[in-house]
């Protein structure tokens, strides 16, 4: 049984039909990339899994149990974490407070902070600063640190390299690769080299549906299956 099963999911924004039957699965321990052009429904797929944009049709099963009809906080409580597009750090909370919020109620907060600072030493120096004052790269590190201390079994990662300088993208890639050692991940990414670098498998999304899939092993960015990404 896969850890995550998305089956024929249809989702809408108002009357706009965004997901037109997305089907994909993620096995425990895998990193799966979801690639596609802008506006094809990648972020909506993640939002549907989290029940932020609940599917009108289809099912999302996590560890064999349907998530449809549950609240987002219940999905999170089951072990699904989210590193969203644009980081979405709490700008008026400090770095430390952002991390504290992500620590599950039963976990030791100080231990979690220590783990986060060990993984991202730069954050420990700016723990008292408001997250809104950080650079894009620092905010991305903070967003990943929140995912780290959340002790999630599955992380949904949305465009982790978006808007970052190439050097910072390298750091982010390394941080995600470290995280992937213990965590299953579904990563939405437009940066194809990065997606192929960290993922075991990929899905190509177009017009709200999966049009291609496969293993990333031995696959290069000029593979014909990715042609529609630049179309």
């Amino acid at each position, binding site marked *: 049984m896969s850890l995550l099963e998305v089956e024929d999911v249809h989702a809408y924004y108002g009357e706009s039909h965004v997901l037109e039957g997305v089907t994909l699965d993620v096995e425990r321990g895998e990193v799966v990339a979801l690639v596609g052009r802008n506006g094809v429904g990648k972020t909506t797929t993640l939002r549907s899994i*989290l029940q*932020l944009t609940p599917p009108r049709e289809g099912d999302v099963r996590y560890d064999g149990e349907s998530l449809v009809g549950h*609240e*987002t*906080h219940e*999905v*999170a*409580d089951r072990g699904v*974490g*989210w590193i*969203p597009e644009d980081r*979405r750090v*709490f*700008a*008026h*909370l400090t770095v430390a*407070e952002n991390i*504290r*919020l*992500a620590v*599950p*109620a039963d976990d030791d907060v100080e231990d979690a902070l220590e783990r986060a600072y060990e993984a991202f030493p730069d954050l420990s120096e700016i723990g008292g600063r408001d997250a809104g004052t950080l650079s894009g790269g620092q905010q991305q590190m903070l967003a990943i640190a*929140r995912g780290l201390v*959340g002790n999630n079994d599955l992380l949904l990662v949305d465009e982790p390299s978006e808007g970052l300088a190439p050097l910072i993208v390298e750091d982010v890639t390394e941080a995600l690769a470290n995280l992937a050692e213990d965590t299953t991940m579904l990563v939405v990414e437009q940066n194809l080299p990065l997606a192929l670098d960290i993922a075991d498998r990929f899905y190509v999304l177009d017009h709200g549906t999966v049009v291609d899939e496969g293993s990333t092993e031995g696959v290069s960015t000029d593979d014909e299956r990715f042609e529609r990404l630049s179309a």
Partner: protein
Amino acid sequence: MSVAGTVVDVLVSGLAKASLYAMMALGLTLIFGLLGVLNFAHGSLTMLGAYAAGLLMVTFAGTGVSALVWFLVAGLTAGVLVGGLGAAMEVGLIRKLYDRPPIYQILLTFGITLVIDELARIVVLFYGMQPQTDWQAALGTKPAFIADTLTVFGGTINHLELFEILWGVLTVLAVWAFLNRTRYGLVVRAGSEDEDMAAALGIDVRRVFTVVFALGAGLAGFAGALLMWDPAWAASVPLASETLLPAFVVVIVGGLGSFRGTVVAAVIVGMVDALMTYFFDHAIITFSGLPELTVFLILVGVLVVRPQGIFGLAEVGGH
């Protein structure tokens, strides 16, 4: 009176008014900051708090236990009762309108205030608490020392003003500590910034909304208990609108949803009000509406120069 006496007089009076304004406005700003709801029923909740505390004081004060102890019991009871009513309002009525434009919430809470005020009017008439504007019975439960005055540098300070400042400071500190020193306060601040992200971190944002609405309403109820003993306010049905207006002025001047802004604006408005009241009381200016006029001029000035308020963000609250 000496200059020092005048300064003391205006300063203490201003701080007392600021304390009352802060207590009236803090609940309003908490609710707007997290839920994005402009609660027009806030004044009515304050009025209910004044009557609830007043009823308890009239019933139990003078039974041998210190009136101050009863004040604490009455104030906390008023806060809890009105807080419970606020929670019921949020769950039963307001929650259904979160996905609608703000005008729906404004109309709903305005409707709620009309219902509460009319019901209160019926009850107080039935039990003979009116027609007097001030509910003298509740005012009469004040312990003697609160009615005393003391003289400092020639200025006159009412003990009641010191009592109001004490509770204003304690309330501001308590709310600040809740928001900044507790896990739940952290959750509230996160939920007010990004509801979706907070939910994705496992926070039941809807439950937080209910708790914050209850807390905001409870603060209004407790403020009502404090106003009950102040002859300038007292327990009366019109207290609903009389407190709603300054509360709105304070939260708009401070910046909607900003705790710091609300406290600073309460001090500014309280001080200006006290100064203008002094001018009028000493016949320096003989226009009786001077304090109110000046307070609203502050509101107009801030709206023109800095529409988001002193510490306001361009956008805050909402869903």
